[in-house]
């Protein structure tokens, strides 16, 4: 606590010193305020002009115009945010009020020319994007900011919704699933609730989640980021990836190539060996996934339940070469 107070004291002192220095240098401050106000007014006017131009434009070019407005607005907000360090709070407050008016003006214009268009959301998002820079004055504005950010985020993610479910394979029994590049190119793949299944992913997922599998064989091409395995039993999992985390699973044979260290937690009876799956376009997929084939490891494994370094973890061992499946075809 005293440490914290000391720190605060130091900061306050620094600020006071800075302010004192500022007073000595009053002329410079006034100059910068003048510069700020001039540039602010100039940019504000140019945005207003752009809005006025809408009335004399063809309707099809209005969306572009409004996008330009949004970009200009974002710039202006950023400028105010960046300047907030050195301009007096009264000037800042005035600027913020002006920004609010301008924002309303933009909104009204937008609703007038482009009612209920998706573009409206997109651009409003842009406008809101740099808002947090200005939010340091009061709690009230922070609350407002928060609402704007949330509204923005809701809209900006709409496009993801459609693609979302496509790579989710769950609740299957006794199936063989062949998943190819077209379906999963750079997407994240989820496999869950599978029993007695074989899944062959000939592609390069951006991430892979494997959950709740019983007696399954999973083969995957190179994964560019992380693979997460949870609650799986009696499986064979063949995967190359950047990160591998395995939780609460038992009796699994892993054929892995990981470019960092793999970790296991609450797992027992694991066997590890090197990644040996191959299919025609796997080389291209390694390149696409940005995985270096030469830096793959299958034995760099940390067990969170076994932090001793003098003895190996009893929860995993190396799969003997003679037990290794060499041919995954068929």
């Amino acid at each position, binding site marked *: 606590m005293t440490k914290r107070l000391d720190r605060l004291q130091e900061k306050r002192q620094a600020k006071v010193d800075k302010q004192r220095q500022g007073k000595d240098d009053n002329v410079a401050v006034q100059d910068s305020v003048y510069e700020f106000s001039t540039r602010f007014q100039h940019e504000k006017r140019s945005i207003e002009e752009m809005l006025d131009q809408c009335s004399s434009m063809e309707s099809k070019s209005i969306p572009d115009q409004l996008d330009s407005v949004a970009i200009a607005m974002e710039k202006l907000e950023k400028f105010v945010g960046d300047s907030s360090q050195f301009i007096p709070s009264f000037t800042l407050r005035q600027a913020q009020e002006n920004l609010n008016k301008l924002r309303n003006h933009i909104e009204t214009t937008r609703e007038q020319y482009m009612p209920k268009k998706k573009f409206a959301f997109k651009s409003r998002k842009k406008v809101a994007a740099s808002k947090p820079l200005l*939010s*340091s004055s009061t709690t009230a504005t922070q609350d407002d900011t928060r609402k704007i950010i*949330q509204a923005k*985020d809701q809209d900006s993610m709409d496009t993801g919704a459609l693609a979302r479910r496509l790579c989710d394979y769950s609740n299957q029994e006794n199936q063989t699933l062949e998943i190819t590049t077209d379906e999963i190119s750079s*997407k*994240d793949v989820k496999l869950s609730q599978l029993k007695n299944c074989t899944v062959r992913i000939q592609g390069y997922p951006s991430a892979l989640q494997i959950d709740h599998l019983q007696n399954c064989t999973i083969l995957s091409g190179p994964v560019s980021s992380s693979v*997460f395995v949870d609650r799986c039993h009696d499986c064979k999992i063949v995967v190359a990836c950047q990160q591998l985390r395995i939780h609460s699973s038992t009796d699994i044979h892993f054929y892995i190539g990981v470019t*960092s260290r793999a970790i296991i937690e609450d797992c027992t009876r694991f066997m590890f060996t090197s990644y040996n799956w191959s299919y025609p376009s796997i080389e291209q997929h390694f390149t696409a996934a940005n995985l270096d084939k030469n830096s793959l490891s299958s034995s760099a494994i940390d067990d969170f339940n076994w932090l001793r370094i003098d003895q190996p973890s009893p929860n995993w061992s190396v799969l003997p070469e003679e037990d290794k499946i060499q041919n995954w075809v068929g």
Partner: protein
Amino acid sequence: MYFNPRGLDNAGKTTILKRLNGEDVNTISPTLGFNIKTLEHRSFKLNIWDIGGQKSIRSYWRNYFESTDGLVWVVDSADVRRLEDCKAELHALLGEERLAGATLLVFANKQDLAGALSSNEIRKALELDTIHSHHWSIQWCSAVTGEKLLDGVDWLIDDIASRIFTMD
């Protein structure tokens, strides 16, 4: 300022830290212990304590809360299955006495993944609106591409700075 990034394992805490610091994010291993970094941004010195998120080490989190100004809760937005777990851990954390007064920034990370939920969906799932004990905000981001990371950090700095300023 002291920042504490927390969140379940595989959320991307270390990747965010390394991305902010301009380091290679392609060779990061799951964090077994912790990483401590001091970064500078907008003339603020940020001390960041990044601790692993595995279940078995979450109980150690509370040992590293002293003088936290900003709590950064990192969420794997594509990990729908563990959102419940994620919510419980977050709300338990906010009950920590030593975090009282800390500003909370939630990063809805991994927006580069097609299966990621929007930050609005994350906000609902984590019941952020029920949080009244801390200043908070949610920011979508992608640690892999670096998108929106600075927006979140800037908000956090501004909020903390305004708090300290108000104390004067």
